[in-house]
């Protein structure tokens, strides 16, 4: 496909739910205040006895969120997604999903908590149990999404992308590709994940979680990530059908697979170099045009050095002029929701002309050659880029451009 002939793709609505707050305004205020959201995992979510890490970025859900799914089968992640979805629809001047051609949602764990309950019930007694059928049904994320779609009176293809931590970015990227290929005119895309015991235990077993509970992306002595939860969605529209105000454009998307290892990145970040190169090229930009990068920046020793090397290799002499931060330092790693939430943060940065901070850095890692944003900064942001790298090696990069008022 000729890069110069790309269909212009506008973002006309966005919704965000993160440990920093519910909605655009709450998140923006938290970034402005350089606020962090880590606290002990409450017992009502799951017990953390026996784990090294005890904290996470936790979303404070309102006591009652109207949901089409019976409370006991509504996954927390689905509730967050519903909130983000309603915000995005409202922002684009819609009360329903009418006119949306496809819903593409990324998730790493789906409704894992229901699967856990199913498992615990099954192993507690070999007999047959009430509610197991409904748990098995609602464990499937497509079922949860379908009930949300029904509530919104919408019928259309529901696609669930599960590429671990790149899921949300890939979902948005798929939406972009669908519109570019002419298959769709309007796509609702995003991602979500809620904290779940199995996933928490998994990262804890890998010793990937910061024992202190405080992630320090790009710090020389960083010792791991913190998990978080959240959801974000965007409404993407082809320019020729757009009616709502365009908040920004998605100008580039690329994905590649890092074959180095199932859980560890190639030390030189070769797949990341490819996705950043392709996404900027598709945008008609050079690295020097990128004002801000929301990095994958997990805070693990392997990820951050690989990403820093990749940014340097990709940007070359422009590296030192590019501002970079990791918002995972404030809210944790939202896994399947991370790519979507961080894309919406880029959108907020483009709209608000600011850059969120990489918090908790004491001594910058020597691999960092870029301009690490360490406190909230008002700045010109014309083009923003976000990276997402997942378990399994899925890398994704999105590039967005500011729309002038």
């Amino acid at each position, binding site marked *: 496909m000729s890069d110069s002939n790309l269909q212009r793709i506008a973002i006309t609505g966005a919704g965000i739910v993160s440990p920093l707050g519910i909605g655009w305004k709450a998140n923006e205020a938290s970034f402005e205040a350089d606020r962090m959201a880590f606290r002990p995992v409450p017992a009502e979510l799951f017990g953390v006895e026996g*784990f090294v890490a005890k904290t996470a970025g936790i979303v404070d859900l309102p006591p009652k969120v109207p949901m089409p799914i019976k409370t006991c089968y509504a996954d927390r992640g689905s509730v967050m997604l519903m909130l983000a979805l309603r915000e995005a629809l409202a922002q684009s001047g819609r009360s329903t999903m009418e006119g949306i*051609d496809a819903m593409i949602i990324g998730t*790493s764990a789906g409704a894992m908590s229901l699967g856990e309950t199913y498992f615990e019930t099954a192993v507690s007694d070999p007999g047959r149990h009430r509610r197991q059928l409904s748990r098995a049904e609602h464990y499937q994320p*497509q079922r949860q*999404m379908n009930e949300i779609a029904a509530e919104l009176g919408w019928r259309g293809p*529901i696609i669930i992308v*599960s590429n671990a931590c790149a899921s949300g970015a890939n979902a948005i990227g798929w939406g972009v590709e669908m519109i570019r290929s002419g298959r769709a005119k309007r796509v609702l895309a995003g991602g979500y994940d809620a904290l779940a015991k199995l996933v928490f235990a998994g990262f804890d077993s890998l010793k990937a979680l910061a024992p202190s509970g405080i992630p320090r992306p790009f710090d020389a002595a960083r010792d791991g990530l913190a998990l978080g939860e959240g959801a974000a969605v965007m409404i993407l529209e082809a320019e020729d059908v757009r009616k709502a105000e365009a908040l920004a454009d998605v100008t580039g998307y690329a994905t590649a*697979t890092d*074959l180095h290892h199932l859980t560890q990145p190639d030390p030189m970040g070769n797949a990341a170099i490819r996705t950043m190169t392709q996404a900027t090229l598709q945008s008609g930009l050079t690295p020097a045009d990128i004002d801000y990068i929301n990095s994958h920046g997990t805070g693990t020793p392997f990820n951050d050095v690989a990403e820093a090397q990749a940014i340097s290799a990709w940007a070359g002499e422009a590296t030192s002029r590019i501002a970079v931060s990791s918002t995972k330092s404030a809210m944790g790693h939202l896994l399947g929701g991370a790519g979507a939430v961080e894309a919406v943060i880029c959108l907020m940065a483009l709209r608000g002309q600011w850059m969120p901070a990489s918090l908790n850095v004491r001594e910058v890692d020597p691999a960092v050659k870029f301009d690490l944003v360490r406190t909230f900064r008002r700045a010109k942001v014309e083009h923003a880029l976000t990276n997402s790298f997942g*378990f399994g090696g899925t890398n994704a990069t999105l590039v967005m451009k500011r729309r002038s008022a």
Partner: protein
Amino acid sequence: MNATGLHINGVGAVSPAGWSSAELLRVVRGKEELPVTNCPRPGIDRPWPCPVRTVPPVPPEKQVRHPRFRRVSAISRYAAAACLEALKDAGFETPPPRLGILFVMMNGCVNYTGRFYQEVLDNPAQASPLIFPETVFNAPASHIAALLGADGAVTTIIGNSNAIMEALDMASVWLSCGVCDHCLVVGAEECDWLSAEALTYYHEAHVASEGAGALLVSASGKGPAIQRIAGPLPFHSWKERNELIPSLALPASILIDDHNGIAKHDAAEAAAWSHLDFKTRHSPKKLLGESMGASAALQLVLATLECRDQQTSVAVSMPGCNTAAYGCVIGFDAEVGV
């Protein structure tokens, strides 16, 4: 929005019928009865039957020799074998460059997931870091990518039993956007006691199954093409599903349906297709069992094989279970290119 015009240039399958698409075709054509066993529950007997039809042990020539495959789950092994067969069937002795991979599943790596979670419940401090990465939904796709050296677009989709149609649609988007030149679309699943038990909650006669079906698709080629697609026909309830199914009925010489032998499940589909005549009709699920994310993939493999062998059009009925229904026709006269 669909994958009409995609060419299926190679197929591969692993199923309770065996470790090749030829064995799948033989069993289905011959309506061979495959053994059913009672799925054992670890540690304790279950006071009700839980029937399964599993994939037979892997023959030596189908063993995947790659470092990534030392401790992978069964789903990865099934998918790898099916993908390798599909590539070979398409004439690729080595994987082609710019190969995309779309992996479809409903349940995923359930064996390792159950095992890991049991370890967490027993003692979180001793839960194995070697097992956890294998529980992640996209671990099998990652292994296949590593095996084939596919470093471009690789994605996992979770969905309905017919989610492979969504994957085929995305494959056509990738091909038309130049993301890849060829795409492996694979649906796979592995059996475990948890999902086998879950199926019995739907109906006690369900036989849980496993396997993988792989399609090597391209924008052109000598293989048959997807000529027509009915769907997606989204539904929010079983009642709506049954009302929509008649829209799936597409004329062809051969029909591969979704019947599993449970009247409650099959009735609406049977009625929907009853006005059409078919030279041959296959119901692979009746013979193989319910393999969830792999089931429609195996139907499509079978359809491609019959289309190639009989040189005739084959309809596939994939009504699905919880989001959307699909039908399609595979034949040799593609009317629409991607």
